[in-house]
């Protein structure tokens, strides 16, 4: 599956996305850890607090659906194709 990076995270990593292996049962959190390994850069703490919850303004979407309304980082990726990762951002 594809893990896409946005906003300051994209600028920090210098890549728009990476592909990770996603076997059945893999969680979103595990997929993001694999994406960290793939980029060679640590960014988990840019997105999540110590409880694994996204900071205000940050979000992780699984095929567009926010994992905050599912099981957070424990949400199984299922047959989703894309994870979108956003660090805190906002505007109007």
């Amino acid at each position, binding site marked *: 599956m594809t893990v*896409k990076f*946005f*906003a*300051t995270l*994209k*600028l920090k990593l210098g890549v*728009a996305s990476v592909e990770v292996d996603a076997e059945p049962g893999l969680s979103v959190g595990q997929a993001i850890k694999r994406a960290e390994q793939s980029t060679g850069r640590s960014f988990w703490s840019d997105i999540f607090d110590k409880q694994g919850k*996204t*900071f*205000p*303004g*940050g*979000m992780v*979407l699984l*095929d*567009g*659906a*926010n994992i*905050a*309304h599912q099981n957070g980082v424990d949400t199984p990726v299922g047959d989703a194709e894309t994870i*979108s990762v*956003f*660090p*805190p*951002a*906002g*505007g*109007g």
Partner: protein
Amino acid sequence: MAFMGTMLRVNLTDGTIKKDPTPIELAKKYVGGRGLATRLLMNEVDPTIDALSPDNKLIFATGPLSNTNAPTGGRYMVITKGPLTGGIASSNSGGEWGAYLKKAGYDLVILEGKSPKPVYLSVMEDDVQIKDAAHVWGKRVPETTDTLIAESGQKKAKVSCIGPAGENLVMFASIMNEKHRAAGRTGVGAVMGSKNLKAIVVHGNKKSPIPDPNAFRDLVKGKIATIKANGITGEGLPKLGTKVLDNIINENGMYPSRNFQDVMYDGTSHMSGEALVEKGYLKRNSGCYMCPIACARNVELPNGRKGEGPEYETGWAFGPLLGFHDLNVICDANFLCNDLGLDTISAGVTIACAMEMYEKGYIKKEELDNGPELTFGNSEALPYYLYKMAYREGIGDKLAQGSFRFATGYGCPEFSMTCKKQELPAYDPRGVQGMGMSYAVGNRGGDHVRSYLIAPEILGSPEKLDPQAVEGKMQWLFIFQNLTAVIDSSGLCLFTSFALGADDYADMLNAATGFDLTTAQWLEAGERIWNMERNFNLLAGIGPETDTLPRRFFDEPAQRGPNKGKVHRLPEMLPEYYQLRGWNADGTMPQAKLEALGIE
């Protein structure tokens, strides 16, 4: 007490200028700025008048925190009866002009009547004069600004002015200050143009009186630290500005394209805030008066053109909404609107409406006078029709009325994406139920900054709400509308609310004014302001039947993305909203509600 204690009353018909005491006793009930000015407008203007007649009044207002060192304390508001909606018009701008009006010694300027010839108002502390503006009438915003600063003899003088669009009474003309900052929405620039008033130039060196300046400074330091420590205001907005939202909103499946016919846009990454950085167009960010966030974008294009922006809404309205994503075209169109004094949201949404009508055969090719075809994806059309609108040439004369009147003129108002005749911003209601309600019941029509429910529904600030849920949303809308009225009226920027809460604003307002109101009392002032604005609209003939959305959002489900199949669920929420507001079930306002809030 934070107020300068004096307001200017300028009669443009007979040229008289009066310096009246600011009614500070009313500030305990209406805060200042938006609230106090709306109160004065209600006292002095019949809501049923023609907005562009000399009977209308135009009020430039600062808040008690303007010209203080409170974070973002430089804003001002323009309040009047608006030509676009026919109801309360109220538009808010940053930069430094607001602070400088107070430095000149004045909390508000009330403009009455109509000058027999083009003039501008010069406010240099005690020296206040109406001056001839024949030499800048017809000029664009940058030339007007430079000319009037030079004439003032004060390099730091600040100019708030209209461009050709305001002079030509385009119904969504903006008022621009410091060339790039806009009181953009609700057509306040047209009212200024109708009065033959080109500009207000301000300068001074006065400080706002604060009861205990040291205590206030210490208090403010804490609030600034909170803003800087927040991920949105301390990191996201400074680095990428509001345009960071392009991908966020698109990935969430609620980024309207092709006049809201689609809820996503495939080329978003090519014109996003990230792209602005990656292509090297973004040179630096900058901030308004006393702003610790500094979200303004300073851009230079490969063609050498420089300017500020685009903000998120503008980039969307001049790109994906019209079916293209050329950042050069988007930025140049933004610069053009700033020069001409046009609201970018209403301008873009009106052209999108015309494109859909043209593609569906309602507008004939011969009506375009050999101009570019109004088809989605045709970026050539954008600058051409912006210019035509501003100068009211050809079909631009009809477009200058906004999309509702334009589409209605062809018998197809359903293509106008408006609420109360004002064009909608860049969040599709089918993907975010609370924000859709915010549009539907907004006092100034389709608008996103009077109750920005995107914060909780999408950004998770202060907590994450499910954007498709309807239960409990109206309580959030109620609180956001009231709190935003307080923030606007205080003279601060709404962006501070990503980091600060109601108690923080109450702290700063009490410390600045010397009032001793509880947070609940300040929020009640916000509720009072909201109800007063609603009452103005009801008296103007804008009834509860306008508390709705374009049919598209009920009849045409989202076609793709995470919101596929969704429509807006307004009927499930509107009765609850009326109930929370204490209004009648039909949306009218009981006299007892006005009395309970102490609205005379």
